[in-house]
């Protein structure tokens, strides 16, 4: 079954502060995402990978095209490219998760509460949410001594793991990951891959931007290759040779 159907997606930025220059982020991208699959988005820097994810999450307003999200069986199909803000807010609550490569931390909130927060906001009792947060931090090898500390003082890799744990905590149906492993060393990256594979086992659909081809090879089912804002290819992971761009 199809989970997400992207058709003719365009994003153009009108940069008023630069004499109204138009910058093309995405130029008519179309592809489908199957339910439960792990789709990796690859391409050179500036090829539109992050723009694509942000358009799916509606952090960017797409200029044209549609993004059909099929959701649960009994729910109506939503066009994420054009639906109202309130519809987006409702889906973000539990159905669609997003995480960037940078932790959007809240000052003076300890790591365990940063990870637990999305669950608490969904209505999970605080202690149960914290237990789940500790489980995830443990699975990602974040040292226990750091669980009650403020992430502002963490290393890049530690922050990124807190970030990933936060994205996985609410167990969304569709998870959008923007370079969640870019700052991790090989060993912790392995932990992250293991955790992502477990999460996939639960039927989560993932669209992820990855810089590291070894991660793509380990977790992805199919690969979307972007070049200069346009779709270059959609390949099964076996056919992906790790080459992006020309």
């Amino acid at each position, binding site marked *: 079954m199809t989970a997400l159907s992207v058709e003719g997606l365009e994003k153009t930025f009108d940069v008023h502060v630069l004499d109204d220059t138009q910058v093309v982020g995405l130029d008519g991208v179309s592809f489908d995402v199957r339910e439960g699959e792990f789709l990796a988005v690859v391409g050179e820097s500036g090829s539109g990978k992050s723009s694509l994810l942000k358009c799916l999450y509606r952090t960017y*307003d797409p200029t044209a095209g549609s993004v059909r999200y099929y959701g649960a069986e009994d729910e109506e199909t939503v066009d994420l490219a054009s639906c109202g803000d309130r519809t987006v807010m409702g889906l973000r609550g539990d159905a669609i998760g997003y995480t960037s490569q940078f932790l959007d931390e809240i000052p003076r909130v300890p790591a365990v509460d940063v990870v637990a927060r999305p669950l608490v906001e969904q209505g999970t009792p605080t202690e149960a949410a914290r237990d789940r947060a500790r489980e995830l931090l443990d699975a990602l090898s974040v040292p226990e001594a750091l669980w009650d500390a403020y992430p502002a003082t963490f290393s890049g890799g530690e922050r990124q793991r807190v970030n990933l744990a936060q994205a996985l905590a609410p167990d969304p149906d569709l998870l959008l990951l923007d370079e969640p492993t870019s700052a991790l060393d090989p060993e912790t990256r392995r932990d992250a891959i293991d955790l992502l594979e477990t999460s996939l086992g639960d039927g989560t659909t993932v669209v992820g931007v990855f810089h590291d081809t070894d991660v793509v090879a380990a977790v992805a089912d199919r690969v979307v290759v972007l070049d200069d804002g346009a779709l270059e290819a959609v390949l099964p992971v076996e056919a992906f040779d790790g080459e992006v761009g020309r």
Partner: protein
Amino acid sequence: MTLLEASGVETLYGPGCPDCRDATGDRAGTNQCPHCGTVVACAEADLDVEGGEVLGIVGESGSGKSSLAEALALERDPEATVGGEVSYAGHDGNLLDVDYQTRHDLRTGDISLVHQHVRDGLDLEFTGGGNVAEKLLSAGWRSYEDVRARVRELFEETEIPVARMDDPTRTYSGGMQRRVQIARALATDPDLVVLDEPTTGLDVSVQARVLDTFRRVQREEGVAAIVVSHDLGVVRLLADRTLVMRHGRIVESGLTDRVMEDPHHEYTQTLINSVL
């Protein structure tokens, strides 16, 4: 569920003339009418807030954000002429036209305002507990024990040391005074809290904790909020949706992360690029 709906809300300082609206605003580049000198602090403001939702209002000083928020909180400035329509779930008619008693009831029950300046919201000679209790008394609470228990509960919820309850508010730190304001605003379980520049006068380190406390209580209680701030970080942390104001008009609105990362309006782009 829509809690508050506003259309064409305006606040004018001055005699006003038929040209005031056309001659001011974003395109005109001013909020002062060149014909009659009236300051159109805000005008043509349309917005709605759903239950439990947080709406941010950003803009530079003088953009009209506080004027709009005060109109929505039914705060009256005798110098100002307020127009437009505000409807509120569970109440009939235009809230901007209601009589004194209805306004009083709304402001002690359903809608709370946290003032930008502590002195406007609290009596610093009163005890901290007294400031919170006063709100309950004006809402009709009569039992001393009930009031005391509720004040204690609110102190705990907003993380003010209960042991300081009977000390004069002027002896509290800035962060504690702000918490007393928040406790007072939440005292009668309102559906909507309007916060005007909630971090004014607080150290950066204290700001974060006050905001986090408010955010936690806001989510737990499911209370809706309108947060006015010139600080994009404050709005980013708290608001689901954000309005951007300039020269008394709303120039852009949308999901907070969308407004911050994909700003459409020229002014919003400048504002986002001005952040340190």
